């Protein structure tokens, strides 16, 4: 209990209803000792940034399979900025075409994961990113 608990918000923005991936990640992070706030399906950018604010999370994990990432991600990042939550690290997983990845990173996403990612990798990346952030 000496190390601060990492708090992660897992949310699915947009309209697709496939939350299996989000749940698998939530479970994997739980098993790695993180506190995962799971908010479920069909979240608007406003809902996501508000939930992240109320829960004071270190990390937001977004899952998008619908192809709407180019529309949704900039809106979410904008909301976070408006609320003064630039310190929150945002990770993205789902079906993100190769050509779009750089755009996502430019929009402020910390890292993008595709299908078949080893959940332990995600977990390691989160720990590393959070400790880098805290060292700043």
């Amino acid at each position, binding site marked *: 209990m000496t190390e601060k608990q990492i708090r992660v918000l897992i949310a699915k923005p947009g309209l697709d209803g496939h939350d299996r991936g989000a749940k698998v990640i939530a479970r994997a992070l739980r098993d790695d000792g*993180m506190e995962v706030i799971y908010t479920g399906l069909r979240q608007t950018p406003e809902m996501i940034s508000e939930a992240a604010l109320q829960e004071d999370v270190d990390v937001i994990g977004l899952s998008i399979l619908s192809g709407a990432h180019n529309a949704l991600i900039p809106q979410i990042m904008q909301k976070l900025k408006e609320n003064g939550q630039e310190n929150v690290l945002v990770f993205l997983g789902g079906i993100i075409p190769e050509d779009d990845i750089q755009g996502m990173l430019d929009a402020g996403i910390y890292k993008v994961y595709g299908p078949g990612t080893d959940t332990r990798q995600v977990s390691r990346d989160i720990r590393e990113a959070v400790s880098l952030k805290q060292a700043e």
Partner: protein
Amino acid sequence: MSLSESVREGSRIALSRVLSQVENSTPAGKQVLDELFPYTGKAHKIGITGPPGSGKSTLVNALARQLRTLENQPRVAIIAVDPTSPFSGGAILGDRVRMLDLQGDPGIFIRSMASRGALGGLATQTEALSQVFDAAGYDFILIETVGAGQSEVDIVNLAHTTIVVDVPGLGDDIQSIKAGILEIADILVVNKADRPGADQSLRYLKSMIEMGYRPLASSAGKHRLAEAMPNLNMPELDEQLSLWIPPVLKTIARDSEGIESLVGEVLKHQKFLKETGRWQLKEAWTLREIVRKRIEGSLVLDFFQQLPVALLDKTMDDVINRKVSPASAVEILLTYNRNRNQTHYSE
């Protein structure tokens, strides 16, 4: 502006950060809490407890929404506690999934909390978080416990009003007269009342209440809270007025059915507590419990800090090899620390 001032001015981001500091028991958190404490004592704390899957989160969602429609539009804070894994230390906090209706209402603030090893249905710092919300000016604080079995009853030491949520089909009338969770209820709710067996559950619970309260009403008329606190100065209570008989209600939280009556009972209970002087009694009780728990925590911490690791290891070896019983081991260690302190102070 200091952090505590920002919280009282209504900054949500400051509030959220303070909640984290307090939850993690940081020195900064303690300082803010010290500054905020004089402004606490106004909020009505409502506990919601019951078995896993009984619909607590959905009920909290409906309850918060209904409270917001009251005339003075009270602000509502929600603390939702979910269990921490005993193996990984991680947790899935999923209560927000049932509270999507409350998103976007600036008069509502939801905070999820992991139990972090505490066993009574709450986390160690749940009470401290409720103080922060109290000082921030929230009128109602809804505290949802982890899914409770029979003895997760810590909530009664914290809440002014405890709502116990039951669902149809969980047991017969013997279950309903056991000690524990059902007897801490100020209000009993049979949720998912559209399911078969709801009326039967309602009957069991009602007959339990009648069994328990008839002799009390006719003889001493003393409330169990008063009996539990013999050392406190009890105000003179009118025997007729001082008896609260827990109402039993049916709800279907998903459809907001029965929620208006539930809020009615909550407000009735609030009025009852205030008119009979029990509000102050409960506050006194809660604060006494907080101090007691903090002493326990600090003493244990001090104890282990003072104890030489080698002595602990050696004593534990003796216990593991069945040479010394656990009870005697405790005596050895306690005596060691006590003697050490005495020589320390006499020096």
